């Protein structure tokens, strides 16, 4: 099975985020990029499928700060190829990214066709998870999102994907290949790769590059204003011994007609 993994960098929210001077975008210079968590799971799911069925994994991302580290790490983990799309003016909206990918994938030597395209079903800058379904639409192939496991047998032309719903309900879908899958979580947490292995890969491995075509899509949605959460100062701390606090809680609930 031939699997394409799409990976991208997002702002790391462990570090403080800053609003850019324009007041409607994130200060990307101040932010620290990190690989999108569910993309890391998509890579793991692809590697698990390769471990079980053989085949090959190609990892692809649109060039951005620190992406090279992520691609070399993917190679060290077992990805067979790593490809970087260069020449894109960041940032693109979700629809534009999907158009870009649909146009650039056939331009990568020896890449298409693939059996599966996997990527994170969401990212912190794409909570609607629109890139993968948009891409499936452009490629004219099926899409299933929020996937938490993939079962496949070689040569069947289809896979069975697992989805989890609220209340512990699980569903299995048969999907004909080729298909795009939005991975929520791989069957196992992403594997660890020792730093020495990544470093060895940096010496021997190679990141291929491909030029991005011009994408003439203006964003359909405009951000009007971006701010940090504003402190409202509406919390009232109840103090005193447990009896007094309990009476106060009862009073408040009663005053609001809740008890």
């Amino acid at each position, binding site marked *: 099975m031939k699997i394409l993994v799409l990976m991208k960098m997002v702002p790391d929210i462990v570090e403080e985020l800053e609003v850019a001077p324009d007041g409607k975008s994130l200060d990307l210079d101040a932010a620290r990029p990190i690989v999108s968590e569910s993309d890391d799971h998509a890579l793991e799911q692809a590697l698990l499928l390769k471990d079980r069925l053989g085949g090959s994994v190609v990892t692809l991302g649109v060039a951005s700060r620190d992406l090279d580290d992520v691609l070399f790490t993917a190679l060290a983990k077992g990805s067979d190829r790593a490809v970087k799309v260069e020449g894109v003016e960041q940032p693109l909206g979700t629809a534009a990214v999907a158009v870009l990918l649909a146009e650039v994938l056939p331009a990568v030597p020896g890449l298409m066709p693939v059996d599966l395209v996997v990527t994170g079903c969401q990212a912190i800058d794409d909570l609607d998870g629109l890139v993968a379904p948009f891409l499936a639409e452009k490629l004219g192939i099926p899409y299933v999102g929020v996937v938490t496991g993939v079962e496949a047998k070689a040569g069947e032309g289809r896979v069975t994907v697992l989805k989890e719903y609220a209340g512990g309900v699980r569903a299995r879908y048969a999907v004909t290949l080729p298909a795009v899958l939005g991975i929520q979580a791989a069957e196992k947490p992403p594997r660890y790769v*020792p730093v020495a292995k990544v470093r*060895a890969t940096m010496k021997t491995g190679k990141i291929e590059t491909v030029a991005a075509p011009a994408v003439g899509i203006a964003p359909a949605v405009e951000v009007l204003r971006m701010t940090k959460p504003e402190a409202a100062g509406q919390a009232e701390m109840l103090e005193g011994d447990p009896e007094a606090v309990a009476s106060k809680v009862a009073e408040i609930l009663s005053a609001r007609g809740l008890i």
Partner: protein
Amino acid sequence: MGLTSAHGADAQTAVTLETLLEAPGGRELLSCIQCGTCAGTCPYGDVMDWPPRRIIGMLRAGLIEEVLASESLLSCVTCYACMAKCPRGLRLTDLLLPLVKEQAFLHLPEVPAELQKALSNTLRYGNPMGESARKRSAWAATGGVPVRVLAQDPRPVDVLWFVECYTAYHPRGQDNCRATAKLFAALGTDVAILGHEEKCAGECARLAGETGLFDTLMDANLKVLGKYEYARLVTSGVHAYDAFLHEYPRGGFDQPVEHTTTYFASRLEALKPRLTKKLGYTVTYHDSCVLGRHNGIYEEPRRLLRAIPGVKLVEMVHNRINSICCGGGGGGMWLDTYYKAKGYERLADRRVREAVATGADVLAVSCPYEVSRFEDALKVLGHDKQMVIRDVVELLAEALEG
């Protein structure tokens, strides 16, 4: 952090008896007399598939794949007990076990999740907790005394204080930081920290077998240290102390190194007049593996404790060279879940039972890992009403007059 390193070896694939014997210290394998003292003294010797003696025997017999495929080395908490007791003087914890652990780590089919998270965090954020690298000196604003950060004020300094991770980020570690800052202030020490430029010294990653990560951290720290002029490096972390003393010199580090305990012990005469508050505690001291067995620092912390008015020092059955490991070394800090799943006794529990048996009401420690490990053990065992854990520097700072 970038993944490049000037010093580290790249991942090796094939390990043979020959490559092991060619490695520095590898030939020591041949002088083992297979007496089994190491296995007997190892705190997890009873639960390992292959305790140290058998690992050496197997390596000599060429059963290298079997050793590397075993999970035994994940149970090595690098407590230096086997090395301290070896009648042949084999540098087990210094050379042989890390050599094997490094290879075993590269061959691990799956790194236990908790350890994996700590290592990934350390690579990315410079601390195993995954806290913001930019907030490494956030505690300093709560110190009560001004703390100079070299990035903002790069003038030459006498003491470069390498704070380390658990001290900088853990809420109880920050108590250690505040105490240390007060003690430096009481002595009038010319001191400064690296702040957000500091990263984990990496010693426990190295001893867990993740030597590539250690090399990356060492390179980053040496690069930052190279920017500043200082007369000595003093660190709050015992593992960092070990790293700067024994490992960083191969990266070119050549400054004098002290642990906060030894630094304050050697300046006790100047400190004593300030230790005026009577504490009224019965204290037992836990020798950390690194300060104690590895570096022979047994008396300095005890001298500090005895200098505190109203402190009565009592000893546990296992003290000094016989001290029982807290279980946090060599990656053990992030293997509690793994050990628990395997059904192993938590070493911190074993140690705390012995501490409680002394009748002391304070268990004094000198390693930042031990505070949280022993506090957890006290709660798990239900002894948290009768005993508290305090770092030696916390007790010293408490004894400073107001």
